[in-house]
């Protein structure tokens, strides 16, 4: 659509009385007027509560345009540019995209010009140069909750220290990184901080790139905070468009928020899919209030962050030990010759085959990670001759959920997988091997996550982790060192069980 700038305000062309040749797409308007709030304006509580904390397209607002315009003219909401010109091109103001190949242009029927639009967040409705983003400038008083936490577990010593730091960050609007090893119990670490925030009438959001994490956290948070309205936002969830004091959201759904939260928790910042990562950072920054706290949870911070932590430039707290107090099992490396060539001859390296055979003989379940789908298919084909029950699973496998369930139930002795299972799937008493650990896909963080599958339960706190490789990489060494460092720190801090 096009706007006319008149008497210090924007007027949508369709609402203007006369045709104005100066009407322009919003991104082409140089100085955006700002309007002071008129306190005596009889605002619509329906409109303002729908829009509170959000940044929406006009078509996402089920209200007539003249009502929206009246709220704009009285300072209760503002129109923002959907796209902003940068030095080298455009930036999408909803998702932060600046990559050239994610923009395209088309002859736009709404503004009669050639309009550039963002292809990265198109699944949420098109943002183009003539698209205004509607943002509320009004906020309703927020409810306070008295002792909302009804969780009566106890935190380990390592967890407690992190929980205190989280609570401190919440109270003082600070920034904090919680670096917790796989299996440390990082969700519980948030509970006291979230409780404190809710007592203070703050709004809390836990954002993560993965829908699985949202679904998994939802019942746990519901149980911990039974009196607090909680919503889960992901593609296809029923809660979309709602707002609550406690929000669980995926990256994409977070993009619809603006200056909404007092506490922003980002879970698994380093997680797959990698391409979403800069978008998550942008979305989280936009969805936070100016004065708010920011808490990152991760098991494997990227190397740049690790460096910052070492130099004291980033505030961080580590939980180097698992909740059960046993040290992390550390991977061992084993050279397996040119395994790709052997695969061509429909063979697996002898030591890899021996490893698999010994798992099957001792009936110990295991994951075998491989770098790509094509490798996966070949390996499964070979291993099926060993044991028909062996299966493979990859990201686009339609039977993914069934196969993972069958593995949990013990019906599959060994599951060959690509990196999709590196997170989240927790099965007690398993071993893990990686075939081709030298592949680029196995980054330090991926390898730490893979190793993190082993020894999660207190009954079976150890297991075998084997990286079969055709040439050691820095990533492999860094992953192993990271785990050893964590074990050392845990021992020094007295967090490990002494037998």
């Amino acid at each position, binding site marked *: 659509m096009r706007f006319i700038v008149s008497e210090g305000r924007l007027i949508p062309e369709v609402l203007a009385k006369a045709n104005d040749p100066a009407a322009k797409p919003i991104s082409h308007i140089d100085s955006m007027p700002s309007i002071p709030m008129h306190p005596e304006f009889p605002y619509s509580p329906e409109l303002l509560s729908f829009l509170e904390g959000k940044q929406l397209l006009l*078509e996402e607002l089920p209200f007539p345009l003249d009502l929206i315009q009246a709220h704009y003219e009285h300072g209760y909401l503002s129109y923002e540019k959907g796209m902003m010109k940068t030095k080298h091109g455009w930036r999408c103001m909803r998702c932060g995209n600046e990559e050239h*190949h*994610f923009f*395209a*242009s*088309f*002859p*736009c*029927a*709404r503004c009669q010009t050639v*309009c550039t*639009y963002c*292809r990265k967040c*198109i*699944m949420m*409705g*098109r943002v*183009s140069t003539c698209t205004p983003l509607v943002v509320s400038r009004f906020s309703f008083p927020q409810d306070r909750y008295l002792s909302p936490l009804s969780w009566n577990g106890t935190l380990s010593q390592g967890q407690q220290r992190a929980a205190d730091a989280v609570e401190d960050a919440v109270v003082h609007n600070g920034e904090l990184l919680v670096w917790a090893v796989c299996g440390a119990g990082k969700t519980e670490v948030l509970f006291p901080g979230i409780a404190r925030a809710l007592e203070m009438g703050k709004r809390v959001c836990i954002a993560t790139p993965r829908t699985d994490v949202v679904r998994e956290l939802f019942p746990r948070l519901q149980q911990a905070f039974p009196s607090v309205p909680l919503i889960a936002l992901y593609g296809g969830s029923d809660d979309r468009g709602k707002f609550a004091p406690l929000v669980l959201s995926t990256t994409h759904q977070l993009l619809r928020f603006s200056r909404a939260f007092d506490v922003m928790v980002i879970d698994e910042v380093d997680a797959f899919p990698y*391409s979403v990562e800069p978008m998550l950072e942008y979305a989280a920054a936009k969805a936070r209030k100016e004065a708010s706290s920011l808490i990152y949870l991760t098991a494997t911070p990227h190397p740049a962050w690790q460096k910052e932590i070492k130099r004291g430039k980033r505030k961080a707290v580590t939980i180097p030990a698992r909740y059960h107090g046993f040290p992390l099992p550390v991977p061992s490396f084993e050279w397996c010759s040119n395994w790709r060539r052997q695969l061509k001859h429909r063979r697996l390296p002898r030591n890899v085959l021996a490893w698999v055979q010994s798992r099957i003989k001792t009936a110990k379940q295991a994951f075998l990670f491989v770098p790509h789908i094509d490798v996966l298919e070949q390996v499964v084909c070979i291993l099926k001759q060993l044991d028909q029950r062996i299966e493979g699973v990859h990201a686009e496998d339609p039977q993914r959920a069934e196969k993972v369930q069958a593995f949990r139930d013990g019906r599959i002795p060994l599951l060959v997988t690509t990196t999709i299972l590196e997170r989240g799937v927790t099965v007690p008493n398993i071993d893990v091997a990686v075939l081709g650990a030298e592949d680029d896909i196995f980054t330090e963080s991926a390898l730490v996550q893979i190793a993190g599958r082993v020894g999660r339960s207190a009954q079976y706190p150890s297991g075998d982790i084997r990286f079969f490789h055709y040439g050691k990489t820095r990533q492999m060494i860094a992953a192993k060192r990271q785990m050893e460092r964590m074990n050392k720190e845990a021992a020094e801090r007295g967090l490990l069980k002494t037998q």
Partner: protein
Amino acid sequence: MNCLICHTPYNPMMSWRHLLTIEKVDCLCSKCRHAFMRMNGEICDICGRPFAGLEPSHRQGRLCADCVRWQEDDEWKDVLTKNRSVYMYNEWMKEVVALWKFRGDYAIVQAFQEEFCREFYRHFDHTFLIVPIPLSAERLYERGFNQAKALAELLALPIHDILTRHHLEKQSKKSRRERLRTENVFQFSGKTSLQGKRIVLIDDIYTTGTTLRHAAKVLRQAGATDISSFTLIRS
């Protein structure tokens, strides 16, 4: 290069033909490209529907049962000379169309360029008038662009915007019966007579053929002698 649809990086197949600019490099990765199903095999003489997979009872000689029905109706007989399409409507195509038309990712039209043009010239030529099926003003504003016109522009031939359309509820929510009964939503808005002209209507999809026949009828009343249609998809 990144694939236009799935955005994953890929290495386009390069050969001497590409270097000599005889052929353009594909903007899709091979996985996305091969997921489209081109029309092939025997088809209905009128509507272009493939006979493969169709029940024998739905076929009478060289026509499908639907077209026989159209031909038996004096009001609709020969209104549309023939329809030809490029792709079948498989699950993948549904997804791509949803992204292109409903989410509004205009750029995807490029992916159809080569095959759309090649197929057009197999059945038609530049002597036909190209008429894209219009959208109503309301729908055009909502979408931001007309997908039929975007397709017509791929042909690089003059486009004749000589039809307008009333606003009605969405076609896809109605049954065939209801669609047939509905009044004609199109009007002729051209300035010159169509006497003796041959026309190709362009649209994204042929489903029951009602929309295209309604448009054809209006053009026939305006004097055109031969009206066919060419769509991206035959569902």
